[in-house]
């Protein structure tokens, strides 16, 4: 029987009172970790990137992945087969209804890798259901969603890890550590590589909608506004559209690179106060005078970056600078900064250590590297910068109230109404 959102919310009290059920299928697997001590995980919307993350979960001996929910039959079947192959059994369940995952009392945590439009709402629903959450980035469509997401995780005491894995990738950690420990002197400027800012309001031509059992288009849209079906959207080509891709695409990489700059500037507890766009570059400034420059990078080496690879960042102090990017390498202003050893080379896209950090925190109830509060502020910076770009003028933001100062129009852009019946 399919669970509707309404039925799920109403029956959750009953579900939480149900006895703990551990499927017999988990008994005896791997051998190293007793089934009762495994973290049971479900997935929601695992496309290509989600399946990369899933591999990291499947490789952990103390994890049992038990169910996939996806609005596309082909995708849920691919995941089911992948999981069953990894476990050498036939036990992974699949469903088109995420509330079936959220309603299972035996599931401790969920991996959410839908499109951006769903990230915050699905994460908040998962927190309400008592699940810990690993959510792909960008985790929010707007400033308000960034706030709601963090508030919900704190409200329900859930462990949250954004899929901003570079906080657990060696060269990025090494570079941030160099900046944070004073090896570069006083940090005055941090640089975040971003993709081209874009915002399309076009609709692709309407195509015949597939049967709901194959593709649930209404559920795919979720909280995003209605538009007619086209297969490109469901095949991953939804990026760049205003309705599906928040922050004019700035958070696409900014969720990583701006977040790393917050970290490198020791600014995780605040956000810049002013933002001004100059073409595709956005200059922001923290209250303490440190500058954050969000500027073009790309897949073909766009921009003047010294470290090779996508998602580059650069931290500049008055005694030197360091850059890191997805090649796993770093570039430094002075070879002496490498004394003591360069970081191990690890691809910036590798989520394995980040996933392990999440799992460890589920056990300790500690805070992982990309926790809800860190994610809130990192994402807010990206969204605020994008609003400044949209408006084409300087904007001033108050880190305490998390609102624009004396700027009604900018504040209106901090939020979007969600398509009913979805809300947080």
């Amino acid at each position, binding site marked *: 029987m399919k669970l509707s959102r*309404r039925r799920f*919310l*109403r029956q*959750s*009290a009953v*579900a*939480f*009172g149900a006895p703990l059920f551990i499927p017999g299928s988990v008994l005896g697997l791997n051998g190293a970790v007793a089934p009762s001590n495994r973290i049971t995980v479900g997935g929601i919307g695992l496309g290509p990137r989600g399946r990369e993350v899933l591999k990291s979960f499947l490789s952990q001996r103390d994890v049992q992945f038990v169910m996939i929910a996806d609005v596309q039959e082909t995708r849920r079947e691919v995941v089911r087969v992948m999981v069953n192959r990894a476990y050498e059994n036939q036990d992974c369940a699949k469903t088109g209804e995420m509330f079936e995952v959220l309603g299972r009392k035996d599931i401790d945590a969920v991996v959410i890798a839908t499109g951006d439009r769903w990230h915050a709402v699905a994460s908040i629903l998962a*927190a*309400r*259901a*008592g699940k810990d959450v690993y959510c792909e980035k960008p985790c929010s469509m707007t400033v308000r969603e960034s706030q709601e997401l963090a*508030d919900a995780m704190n*409200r*329900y*005491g859930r462990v949250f890890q954004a899929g901003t894995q570079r906080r657990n990738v060696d060269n990025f950690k090494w570079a941030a550590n160099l900046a944070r420990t004073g090896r570069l002197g006083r940090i005055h400027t941090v640089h975040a590589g971003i993709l*081209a*800012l*874009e*915002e399309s*309001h*076009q*609709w692709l031509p309407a195509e015949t909608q597939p049967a709901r059992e194959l593709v649930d288009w209404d559920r795919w849209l979720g909280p995003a*506004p*209605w*538009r007619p079906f086209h297969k490109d959207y469901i095949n991953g080509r939804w990026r760049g559209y*205003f309705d599906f891709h928040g922050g004019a695409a700035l958070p696409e990489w900014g969720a990583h690179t701006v977040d790393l700059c917050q970290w490198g500037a020791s600014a995780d507890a605040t956000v810049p106060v002013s933002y001004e*766009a100059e*073409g*595709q570059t956005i200059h922001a400034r923290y209250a303490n005078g440190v500058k954050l420059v969000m500027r073009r990078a790309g897949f073909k080496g766009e921009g003047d970056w010294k470290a090779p690879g996508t998602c580059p960042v650069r931290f500049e102090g008055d005694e030197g600078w360091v850059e890191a990017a997805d090649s796993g390498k770093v570039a430094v202003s002075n070879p002496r900064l490498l004394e003591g050893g360069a970081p191990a080379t690890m691809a910036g896209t590798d989520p394995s250590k980040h996933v392990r950090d999440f799992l460890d925190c589920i056990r300790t109830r500690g805070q992982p590297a990309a926790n809800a509060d860190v994610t809130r502020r990192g994402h807010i910076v990206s969204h605020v910068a994008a609003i400044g*770009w*949209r*408006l*084409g*003028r300087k904007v001033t933001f108050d880190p305490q109230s998390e609102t624009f100062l004396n700027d*009604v*129009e900018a504040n*209106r*852009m901090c*939020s*979007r*109404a*969600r*398509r*009913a*019946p979805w*809300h947080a």
Partner: protein
Amino acid sequence: MQPRPPRPLARLNPTPMKSLRFLLPCLLLALAGCVTAPDPRESAALAVLKSDAGLREKALACQQLADFAGPAAVPALASLLAHEQLGDYARSGLESMSDPAAGAALLGALETLQGRQLAGVINSLGVRREQAAVPALRRIVAKPGHSGAAEAVGALGLIADPAAAQVLGEILRTGDQALRETAAHASLIAAERLTAAGQSAEAAKLLEASLQAVPAGPAAEAARRQLALRRAS
């Protein structure tokens, strides 16, 4: 893509006011937001809504109005609230507008809408924290089996003024069993907002009522944690 050029700001009509007879009606009109020269962007978007343009063009017009529209756009947006495809777009224009006319339009639509459109409007009233909506939301909650009851409870949690908290408390104590869990979740948000507004005693009452109303689970756990944090601080 280059950033858009700055959008022109709305200007006040500089027409001089020479006599009290002239001044009074002007002041009244000003209060109604009618003497502000129409923002050309708003006029253009409203013209699209009134035209026979296609769904995409009208949807975009609603989204543009969500960024900058004033009360003059309320009737056009409100008239689309029941539209199957454009209703959510129109609601986005009203949800973001601080003018009370937008809230009044959403409140007025409660009686006329059903299903998803009704759920959306109820939620928007919550997002806007429309205190005037509390009595109407209370009536919805009180009707057994009303399709908008769960959304109304959620909206009360967002509004989170003492009147909304009182209704939530009633649901927790004597309401439909099916709604109590929803009310407990809504009360968590309400308690946070009441506390932020300096009404800690009301917040604590709601949390205590939640603990009494729902079985063990995430809502009860969260209420217990909030109460413990309060005691600790």
